[in-house]
């Protein structure tokens, strides 16, 4: 037997020594490994010499069935799991062959994943599902609530299911992929929704009948909502009936009794074999009556070869009017004497028979002894003709119109259909099927009138035409482009209600309304992940959109990151500060940020002290305050263009500013004693410690601060100095314009906004309301005809929020998808450094333009963004995020309407015609309307037109 000494590695270390002196320990202990993968094993060998050899199930080096192991302990699992899939790995001392250590490894199949089921909501009963996932095998079995389903393997990422789902599973159910034993594993589940199956119903036709004694009547039972269409027949609830009330065959043929029962009314019923409660019935009234007789009209007729003649038969004295038709005694006739249909349509043969007169007979089904004859005299006849109905039609693009062709003077009524001379038509002029169903093209052709032709198959020169006018469908109403563009800049994209509001109020009044609107609270909470979710939610749903948009922009200028400030109370108050001051004064904002313990921690101003005391004057905050939050590295002209070779400050300025800002410490914890350098605490503002403050005179940026000032006074003077620098206006203007409007504003535009920063018209500098209005109301922002270098790539947050808003979607306040934004380079609240998620100065690779957001838009991020949107469009956002596709599904039958609706919602009518054509072609192959909707939205969402705000 194997020693049961599977010590966990961490336990093994403290036990090293006497206890393990004679024991070899194999690491890792019991483990699982997927087929075909490799695991490095090691052994702790407290022996000398410490050489060992490895074996698998006692075979040195293992084998292909149970896996191989190298002398260095690298175990490679077999390609297929062995029937006994728990194997024993042994490390045996080569010096003391009786001493060994062992471990067990369970070999499993590769773990499959299930990504999606299409459809994901379906009724119980027979369903066909398409499953996407990974690591599928031909032996993979899909399960629903762990019940196996009939599974057809397509490929490693695709499986089809055709199954009958029992009604007991109605509700939410878990769909998994399972790999069979040995090595059985199963995927994480996805949730599908099973709706109640519709009830089985049975209807019987005809619903009533009147029959003579001894007569028969065929009844038909139609079973709905079950694949089992079988029924059992009964008369007056007697299965199969009896001689008293009449009998009924298994096929529904009722035969009236020979004597009248009492009462003379009986009920014929059919009960579904699938559902005993599903029953349909018919009432039969029996009567004794005169003998059945048949008459036929006309009784004689002359018919041309290849032509047809309709005969009618009337049955008297029986409620069963059915007759059978024969020609010269042959049921249905034949090609020599002509054919007759069940409805009495006689079709003459192609050649004259001998004799040239034939007899058409109608015989009562109820009473086969009753019949009537008509004599038909055949002769060579008139030419075949074709007519088409309707002869003119107007069809919307993508819609259908049924045409009927009538062929006369030929028994062969088949025709071939063509559009503008093309058999079956094509995607340009529309297509037509063999039944005459015409489908208009997705885009109206030029000219917009096409000709449908039906030609007799028997006589192709016999043709008829119809004229079709193809028109665009009822136009999709477009939003006001100007208002939509405005809301892309002033909000995280438009919603229907925002568009309406802007339309009612106009830009300026709407902005004023936003200025006055209460701040959406951003509570500190306990967990930074909750704050991250809140941020994603508020971008999509907060009513004070303009404030949120400005906060997001300011958070890219004045930066704190949750990668250092990892608790909610170290980061959320910073957002509160940005929110509170978004429409205030920039000087106030700088002041509040400077003495906030959140920034104090992030850039180390907390406990920055005069030289020679404590840690000394920390330059981190002073440097970024100048470089990133206020004036930047180089002197700027009033229009934001750099002055060549003119640094805006020197290291000496930073050092002086650092001394000026010394003396701040964390707020004293509630109930605690104030210290000279308090420990981290984030309740309230930082506190001044005059003893830590450098009171010498300072000089920087051309300002002079006299000696002897207090911490608070000097900080105020220092910020006043920075705030007064001529760079601040153009510096802030350029960054806000790049985030709100366009990456490449003209210098004049920057200059106009900078001027508003410098003076709001009432002599006040730094008024953010004036700045925001100047940005949003500038002619360059309001120019709806995009110049060639206009636009800004949407960053992941904005792209997501605007997508949800445009599609009337929902973001959960508890959304747990922050990690996806991490992969896309924009973890909420967590820029990688004080330089934010990307630099406002970043230039688009290989393009002579600025494009800050391109810094985090490489191929991988672009794919992750596309896949994220795709998962939302295909309803995989779960409770985290969803969008409303109903408006698109409502028009999905018409390709043009669908594309125009997508254009209206996402691009406000700016989708280029060529792009519409490309999408229309893709829609032609979609399997159903739902896939059409996803395709149209997906292609649009991935387009550059949608990736860019312009």
């Amino acid at each position, binding site marked *: 037997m194997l020693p049961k000494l599977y010590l966990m590695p*961490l336990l*093994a*270390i403290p036990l090293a020594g006497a206890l393990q002196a004679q024991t070899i320990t194999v690491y890792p202990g019991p483990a699982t490994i997927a087929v075909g993968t490799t695991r*490095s094993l090691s052994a*702790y060998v407290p022996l000398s010499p410490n050489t060992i050899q490895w074996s698998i199930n006692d075979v040195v080096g293992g084998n292909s069935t149970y896996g191989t192991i190298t002398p260095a302990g690298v175990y490679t699992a077999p390609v297929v799991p062995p029937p006994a899939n728990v194997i024993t790995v042994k490390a045996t001392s080569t010096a003391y062959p009786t001493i060994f250590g062992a471990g067990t490894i369970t070999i499993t199949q590769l773990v499959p994943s299930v990504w999606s089921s*299409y459809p994901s909501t379906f009724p119980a009963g027979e369903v066909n599902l*398409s499953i996407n996932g990974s690591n599928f095998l031909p032996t993979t079995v899909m399960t629903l609530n762990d019940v196996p389903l009939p599974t057809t393997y397509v490929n490693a990422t695709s499986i089809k299911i055709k199954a009958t789902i029992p009604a007991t599973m109605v509700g939410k159910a878990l769909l998994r992929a399972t790999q069979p034993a040995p090595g059985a594993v199963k995927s994480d589940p996805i949730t599908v929704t099973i709706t109640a199956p519709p009830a089985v119903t049975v209807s019987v036709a005809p619903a009533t009948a009147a029959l003579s004694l001894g007569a028969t009547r065929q009844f038909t039972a139609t079973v709905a909502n079950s694949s089992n269409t079988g029924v059992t027949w009964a008369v007056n609830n007697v299965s199969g009936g009896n001689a008293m009330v009449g009998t009924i065959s298994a096929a529904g043929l009722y035969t009236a009794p020979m004597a009248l029962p009492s009462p003379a009314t009986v009920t014929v019923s059919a009960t579904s074999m699938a559902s005993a409660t599903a029953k349909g019935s018919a009432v039969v009234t029996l009567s004794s009556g005169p003998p059945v007789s048949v008459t036929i009209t006309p009784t004689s007729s002359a018919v041309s070869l290849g032509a047809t003649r309709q005969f009618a038969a009337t049955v008297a004295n029986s409620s069963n009017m059915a007759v059978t038709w024969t020609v010269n005694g042959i049921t249905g006739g034949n090609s020599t004497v002509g054919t007759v249909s069940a409805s009495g349509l006689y079709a003459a043969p192609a050649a004259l028979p001998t004799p040239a007169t034939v007899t058409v007979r109608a015989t009562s089904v109820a009473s086969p002894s009753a019949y009537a004859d008509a004599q038909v005299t055949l002769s060579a006849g008139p030419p075949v003709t074709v007519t088409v109905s309707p002869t003119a039609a107007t069809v919307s693009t993508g819609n259908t119109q049924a045409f009927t062709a009538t062929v006369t003077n030929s028994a062969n009524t088949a025709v071939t259909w063509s559009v503008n001379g093309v058999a079956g038509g094509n995607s340009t002029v529309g297509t037509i099927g063999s039944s005459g169903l015409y489908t208009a093209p997705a885009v109206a052709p030029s000219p917009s009138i096409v000709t449908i032709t039906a030609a007799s198959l028997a006589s192709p020169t016999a043709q008829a035409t119809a004229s079709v006018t193809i028109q665009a469908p009822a136009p999709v109403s477009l939003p006001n482009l100007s208002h939509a563009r405005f809301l892309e800049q002033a909000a995280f994209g438009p919603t229907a209600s925002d568009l309406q509001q802007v339309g009612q109020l106009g830009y300026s009044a709407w902005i004023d309304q936003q200025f006055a609107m209460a701040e959406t609270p951003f509570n500190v909470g306990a967990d930074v992940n909750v704050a991250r979710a809140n941020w994603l939610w508020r971008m999509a749903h907060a009513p004070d959109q303009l404030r949120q948009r400005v906060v997001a922009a300011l958070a890219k200028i004045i930066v704190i990151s949750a*990668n*250092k400030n990892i608790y909610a109370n170290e980061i959320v108050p910073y957002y509160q500060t940005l929110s509170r001051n978004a429409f205030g004064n920039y000087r106030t904002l700088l002041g509040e940020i400077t003495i906030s313990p959140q920034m104090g921690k992030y850039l180390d101003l907390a406990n920055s002290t005069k030289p020679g005391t404590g840690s000394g004057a920390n*330059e*981190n905050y002073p440097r970024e305050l100048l*470089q990133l939050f206020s004036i930047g*590295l180089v002197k700027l002209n009033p229009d934001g263009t*750099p002055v060549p070779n003119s640094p805006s400050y020197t290291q*000496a300025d930073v*050092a002086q500013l650092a001394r000026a800002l010394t003396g701040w410490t964390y707020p004293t914890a509630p109930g605690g004693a104030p210290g000279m350098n308090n420990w981290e605490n984030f309740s309230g503002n930082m506190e001044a410690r005059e003893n830590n403050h450098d009171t010498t005179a300072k000089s920087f940026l051309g300002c002079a601060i006299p000696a002897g000032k207090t911490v608070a006074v000097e900080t105020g003077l220092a910020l006043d100095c920075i705030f007064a620098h001529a760079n601040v206006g153009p510096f802030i203007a350029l960054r806000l314009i790049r985030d709100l409007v366009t*990456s*490449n504003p003209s210098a004049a535009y920057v200059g106009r906004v900078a001027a508003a920063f410098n003076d709001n018209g009432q002599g006040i500098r730094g008024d953010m309301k004036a700045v925001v209005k100047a940005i949003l109301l500038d002619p360059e922002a309001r120019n709806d005809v995009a110049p*060639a*270098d206009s636009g*800004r*790539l949407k960053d992941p947050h904005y792209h997501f929020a605007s997508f949800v808003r445009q599609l009337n979607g929902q973001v959960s306040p508890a959304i747990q998808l922050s990690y996806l934004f*991490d992969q896309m*380079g924009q973890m909420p609240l967590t820029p*990688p*450094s*004080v330089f934010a998620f990307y*630099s406002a*100065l970043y*230039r*688009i690779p290989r*393009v002579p*333009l600025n*494009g800050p957001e*391109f*810094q*985090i*838009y*490489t*191929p*991988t*991020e*672009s*794919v992750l963004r596309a*896949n994220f949107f795709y998962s939302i469009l295909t309803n995989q956002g779960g409770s985290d995020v969803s969008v409303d596709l109903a408006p698109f599904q409502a028009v999905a039958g018409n390709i043009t309407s669908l594309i125009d609706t997508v254009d209206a919602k996402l691009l406000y009518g700016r989708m280029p015609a060529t*792009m519409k054509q*490309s999408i229309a*072609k*893709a829609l032609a*192959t*979609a*399997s159903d309307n739902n896939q059409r909707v996803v395709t149209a939205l*997906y292609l649009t969402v*991935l*387009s*550059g*037109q949608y*990736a*860019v705000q*312009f």
Partner: protein
Amino acid sequence: MNNKKIGHSRRHFLKAAAVPLAATTGLTKFGLVNALAQQGVTDYRALVCIFLVGGNDGHNTVIPRTSSEYNLYKTIRGSLALPDSNGPVLDVTALNGTPYGLNNGLQSIHSLWAAQKLAVVGNVGMLVQPTTRAQFLGSAVPLPSNLFSHSDQIIQMQTGTPTGSGGTGWAGRVADQMQPANGSSTFPASLSMSGQSIFCAGNVVQSASLIPGFDSALYGLNIWPASAGAARATAMQEIFTMNSGLSVIQAANQVRQDAAALSAMLKSAGSSQPLTTQFPGGTLGDQLKQVTQIIQLRNQTGIKRQVFFCSLGGFDTHSSQSWQQWDLLKQVSQAMLAFYNATVELGLADKVTTFTESEFGRSLQPSGVGSDHGWGNHHLVLGGAVKGGDLYGAIPPMALGGPNDSGTRGVLIPSVSLDQYGATMAKWFGLNDAAIDLVFPNLKFFPTRDIGFLG
């Protein structure tokens, strides 16, 4: 003292005010330097960083083996001293005959030392300028901000700036300087296998990221029926190549075209060019396997110079260090060996240099069965171009409160600055002195620009 290769002469440092602002500005124009830097690059070269997140304990990665230093080491390290129950110390000898020992977890690459492909660079860390213990204790020289803080030091070691400033990584800036060598290739020159990393971000070069094993496929193309997926792909191609007349839209579409090309290449790299070399499983093995696949695409992409970032976490060994560090180093060495073997198989061993970084080293004096945040650290460099089988930099004397100790616990003041470490690789990568000075603005404060482990 085991210092070698690096002189101790300390130039009087320049006043900090003299640091040119241009070095950290995004407005710097690189055209002129580029033109000077790369003439006639024809070969392929790659730098591959393995960042050991958490602060790898260098004191137990490379240990002294002269008897006097080893005895001091054993006394000070106490419960953490090697060898421990994980196995014997792996003996190596520097070219001057000084013996050292490697952690048993480095077994996989032990033989590459004797093969002279593996070198150790001792006591590397972030510095503003050469710093002595006296200067440190007297606050007489500028120092990196927030020493011993994970978040700050991770950023500093990746940006190559002692304040974590600048918003670009040193590898990204190295790639910036060599971008002209990549000609018209649009393939990413700077790639992280471990999420978006500032290490890879340049002023010009984007920090591209790949997810190991993910072929960047668009989920929306994998639908039923297949014809509908193909129709979507066709429409996309038309939409992404359509001329919108707007440059920013064109640029966004270009990224999607690049993504389609990248995905196709990743798919082909995964299947059409199988290597004999097997990679170990696990996060680092997967990352280096993906790096190998990208390198295999070099002829298709036309790219000549690439930098890569990989990382492995778990090195913050405040407790349970012995087994934890051994296990992590085992993963590191197995992955490094497989990667090196793959470059041999591709005939590129001397064109690819792999090196470790970590935010900081750890205290020599243990804290229980772990160690605390440190500063200077010993690092591994591997590749055919490495002058291996030798130790560069220094393994400082084993002493608490010794000449290299920033305090009393054996927290090393670095002997080699990150600037020197990176500049040595940048030079091999093809940068001239002017370009290197732009990447590493503080290099000029150090007497040796190239510490010699590549040639």
